[in-house]
């Protein structure tokens, strides 16, 4: 007998077939389903991790943005302050400068006045002297004699002083 009948039952063949199916079940479970499910789960966890990362990054960015906005706001205030301070400083300085320059001008004027005064006094003295000299000489000529110089001088001085007072 080289061939089975079309319908022949053999308990061992049935058992082998039964275990064949069981073995294929384990093979599929281990090498197809477990592997694919593991990779799918891994991918899912990776995607979640990626989402978490993205969320975290967004949060961080928002935080940074908020802090910058805050900074910009304070920067505006600070700039205002600085400008205020600068303006104040400039005002102060200009006032000081104004004051100084006024002072300087005044001192110059004062000095000029003093100079003029002094020069006038000097000129007065010189003119006086010259008048005295001239008048002495004139008097000598007129009178024709030597007069007491000192007497004469005091006389003329008083005359001129009087003249000046008038």
């Amino acid at each position, binding site marked *: *007998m*080289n*061939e*089975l*009948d*079309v*319908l*022949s*039952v*053999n*308990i*061992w*063949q*049935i*058992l*082998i*077939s*039964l*275990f*064949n*199916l*069981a*073995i*294929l*079940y*384990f*093979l*599929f*479970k281990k*090498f*197809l*389903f477990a*592997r*694919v*499910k*593991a*990779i*799918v789960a*891994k*991918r899912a966890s*990776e995607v979640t991790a990626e989402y978490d990362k993205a969320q975290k990054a967004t949060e961080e960015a928002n935080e940074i943005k908020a802090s910058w906005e805050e900074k910009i706001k304070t920067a505006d205030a600070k700039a205002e302050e600085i400008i205020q301070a600068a303006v104040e400083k400039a005002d102060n300085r200009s006032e000081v400068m104004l004051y100084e320059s006024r002072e300087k001008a005044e001192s110059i004027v004062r000095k000029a006045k003093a100079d003029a005064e002094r020069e006038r006094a000097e000129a007065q003295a010189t003119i006086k002297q010259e008048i005295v000299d001239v008048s002495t000489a004139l008097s000598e000529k007129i009178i024709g004699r030597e007069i007491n110089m000192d007497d004469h001088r005091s006389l003329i001085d008083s005359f001129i002083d009087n003249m000046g007072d008038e």
Partner: protein
Amino acid sequence: MSILLLILAILPIVAGIIIKIMFVPAVEGISVTGAHIFFTIDLPLGGLPITESQVNSWLVILSLFFFCLFLTHDLKTKDISKRQVIAEWIVEAVDKMVLKNMGDFFMGFGPFIAAIMGLSAMTSLMSVVGLFPATSDINVVGGWAILVFFVITYYKLKAGILVYLKGFTEPVAFFAPVNVASEFATPFSMAFRHYGNVLSGSIISVLIASVLGALSNLVFQWLPEPLSSIEFFRIGLPAIFSIYFDLFSGCLQAFIFAMLTMLYVSNGFPQDEYFKRKALKHAKENKK
């Protein structure tokens, strides 16, 4: 690596063809026989004949194993290859089918259903390359049906033996013998349905081939001697018919077998009683 595994997946089928050519004598004329017996191992209960069914089943398992390795080696989470798309598609499709037909309690059945479909379809499809389809051997499908029967009974027993036994007396105790008979009829009907369909396909293929041969002789008998003995109708035409009987019927029977497995297991499982029992047990443990 991929190519090597793919070659290893195809190699068993090639080996099957080589074994067939070397050891199985060509069948002359019209004959419908079972699997060819290579040798017999002495065992009680009739001995174990190693036949084409066994060898072809093992070859299919080997082929499917290497195909699995081919699909699932070097899986990635990004930039996935076409292999991985196919692997994920298979797993997803099977899981979806299991979920639809059995519910989420039976989600672990994915590999089992995939194994039934893969093994059944592949062994049936071996007839496409001219090999003996192992599913046309009652012992092969019988083994699967018995395994399925064990699984069905295991899940029926999950709610306790009393619930299992009580199930036979429904709707009335009078029906108990009928229910017992129908219980044992399940594996028989599954096995014989599958076996009968594949075998009938084989028989019809043989019949068609012989009819076409006779028709060819009749039509071309006027041709001179060497030409008239060539059966022209047997070139190509039987292949067209075998597309239905081998390809379509093979896949269909695999699908039906898997479908019946899912329905029998999930219908036989007394879900309400099981969860009630589980809740009771839980409550008792909490009391302690």
